[in-house]
């Protein structure tokens, strides 16, 4: 089957790729670009472990065909740091102990980033609701919510 040429801006870097028409964005990121921070957990859109930002919006990359996002800006967890400086959410997740096994972490942080980019001072309710898009099996969510709250107060 013919491949499709796709241009993306991934973590502020322009890339041009030849992808399979039936290739998911998650596959492209993990297999072609070695950006393995986005995780494949349920692969059906139920868990959020593969969440990345597409033009700033959080999306399940396991449900998106790469050709669909031609021309888009993609942010993965690997692109969140500013040089050596961690994004405040990354810092807060570490400091608050919001990370255990780490498998949901990139999806959680990116989901939270999109929220704070939309709304700098969300109420706790909004934070809980937004973060209820993603599954974490380790933490009981308390420290994740605290980390997002803490960041929003800065």
């Amino acid at each position, binding site marked *: 089957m013919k491949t499709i040429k796709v241009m993306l801006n991934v973590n502020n870097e322009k890339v041009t790729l030849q992808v399979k028409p039936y290739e998911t964005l998650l596959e492209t990121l*993990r297999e072609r670009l*070695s*950006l*393995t*921070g*986005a*995780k*494949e*957990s*349920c*692969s*059906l859109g*139920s*868990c959020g*472990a593969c969440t990345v930002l597409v033009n700033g919006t959080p999306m399940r990359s396991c449900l998106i065909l790469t050709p669909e996002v031609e021309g888009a800006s993609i942010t*993965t*967890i*690997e692109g*969140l*740091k500013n040089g050596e400086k*961690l994004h405040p959410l*990354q810092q807060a*997740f*570490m*400091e*608050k*102990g919001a*990370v*255990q*096994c*780490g*498998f*949901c*972490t*990139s999806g959680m*942080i990116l989901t939270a980033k999109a929220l704070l980019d939309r709304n700098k001072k969300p109420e706790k309710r909004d934070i*809980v*609701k937004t*973060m*209820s898009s*993603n*599954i*974490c*099996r*380790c*933490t*009981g*969510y*308390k*420290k*994740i*919510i605290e980390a997002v709250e803490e960041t929003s107060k800065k």
Partner: protein
Amino acid sequence: MDENLKIVGKRVIRSDSYAKVTGGALYTADLKLPGMLYAKVLRSPYPHAKILNIDVSKALKVPGVKAAISGFDAYGVKWGVFRYTQDHAMLPTDKVRYIGEDVAAVAAVDEESAIEALSLIKVEYEPLEAVFDPVEAMKDTAPQIHEQYKNNINIHIHIEVGDVDKAMAKAYIVREDTFKAKGEAYAMMEPYAVVASYANGYLDLWMPNAGPHVRAKALSNLLKLPLNRVRVRHINSGGAFGGRSEVAPGDLVASLLSIKSGRPVKLVLTREENAMCSRQVHDIIATVKTGMKKDGTIVAKEYKTIYDGGAYSSTGPIATSIPYYVYEECYRLPNVRYDGYRVFTNKGIRGMYGCHGRAFLAGNEAQMDLMAKELGLDPVEVRLKNGLTAGELTATKSKIISCGLKDTIIQAAEKSDFKKKWKKHTRNKGIGMGCVAIMCGFPMGFRSGSSCYVKINDDGQVTLITGMVDNGQGNESLAVQVASEVLGIPMDDINLVNADTEVTNLDPGSYSQAAAYVGANAVKAACEDARKKIIAIASKKLGVPEEEIDLKDRVAYSVKTPDKRMPISWITREAFFKGEPIVGTGSFFPDIDLEREWVSKPEGQMAGTYSFGTSVAEIEIDEETGKIKVPKFIAAHDCGRPINPMAVEGQMEGSVGQAGIATIFEGNMWYKGFLLNPDLLEYKVPLACDMPDIETIIVSSNDPKGPFGAKEGGLTIRMNAYSAIACAFTNATGMLFEELPLTPDNVLKLLEKNKGGKR
């Protein structure tokens, strides 16, 4: 030293978290090796069938396919944790025993070719009658799943202490109830994955595991390779909760494919495969009979507990015993008869679970509340009355070394205003309390202990080498923090090499709650050994006695005259000059009775020490829909001295979800041998919006043998959170639960029964 701790007991940032928040932490599925192939497994479509023939020849003809295997390519070895439970070939050649069992596999240059090749493997089966219910399976008429286990009884544990019948006869009140619970899914976020790379006669493996050394040993047996040829390497693990403790069929599959093809092979299970074909949790039916004196003292317990064991033995006797043990380690049980049966059914393979035993434990606790109420006692009083204290022996003669049970009960009760709320609860609102104890490590023969090496490098930085493994709970950071404390060097200066069987020494793994107590103790001992050497050199160089020297902030200094000081890096170099570089070794072996055996001799010291915990849940039941809400949850935990309180809290909070909210959400659903909810949509892992307001209370005690007084952290809540919910349900409704989970349909049925009943 314990009194002036520099870093132990502090809320430190976990050493593994930087890699995890930046996406740099690698998990098995992230690995890519040169020439790597992708594996896919052909699975049994039958719950029970004879294998007549397996033909993989056509699969091999698919372009890109480099190897195809079945059990006929394996070595005829069966796995079992114990000699008497070796029944699991991992790739069967005689018959399949559950839907989804691994039958054959291929490795190809890409996943698409592998999938195509699978469809060309021909397997001839002769379907056999299957059995899915453990009670049915025990009947004489049931199909035999394994020849050697009559009536499909895999394990029968019989424990008899005192004179149960006499005590029951004399008891003031006696009550017997039966409780059921559906098995849960581990639902770790990482689906199972293995990378196997066989080259030059050595097999390297990466997979999420809870004990690299036991995993390597199992594979060396299955592959008939000498142990030094099987190397389980370090990799991050996306959650385990007991489900990554044992060797997995995928390990054998990937290994055989790599050996056949001479290339690295990666196998990644789908979410559905992870649920159906990696380990599952036991469904349980527990009959609990309790005799109490008029004052609420438990005088006798009689148990019959049936564990739906699935198709193979797994941790058989351990799984059949643990729910009972964690209960007898918590309460004084003068007379006990425990009969635990683990029964084979044609369902997926099962294993231990962090929350294992909820029907049994929640049943015991809820029943105790009802009985106590009849005697005019509240849950707090009856627990304090029957709870064990330090120095006492459990029913099977295990000594309680340190015990903060009473403190956890009192503090959780005070914080929640328990007594008042329990007494004056309004209709369909309730509060409940659950207690439990957890053994820190248990007998695993010579593998019960851990060893550690430490070397001080030329700039004074440290490499720590330990077999301890981290499945996400923070064991790696724990080891680094302990080393930092002993050596007076910041955590950032300590590099960790762990869970790699080539370089690390034996360790029991993280599934017997041994990491903090056993593993960290070995780290402490090794670092103390190195510390002594550092101090000896410092003493000479500074001209002060050794006892006067402490290590702090990378410096050795005199406590009396602090300006007498020198950097540890200088001391290290001095040691190199002398040709005696500073290295330390240390090990720890818990004080346990190694004669103790799960089936043949269930008596003697079970563990080095025990942790304790009390959970309190408040619930509200919607009378019309049966939906339970849990607005508030308080968890109190005696974990000895917490090494990193933030990490301990994290374990406790996670437990409130996985065991607590699971009580109202989680359970595997079956249609015969088909798992109906093997996904993350219909299997209900709680979400952020489902969580209660959680308060954690760490009851700091000081275990005499724990590293800096530490014991296991968090598991007690994982094994009593469901009891708190079940007891709150009893408080709210006056009834006992019949089956977990308490989903709305289940609750409504009970409420309707209650209305129609005698009350």
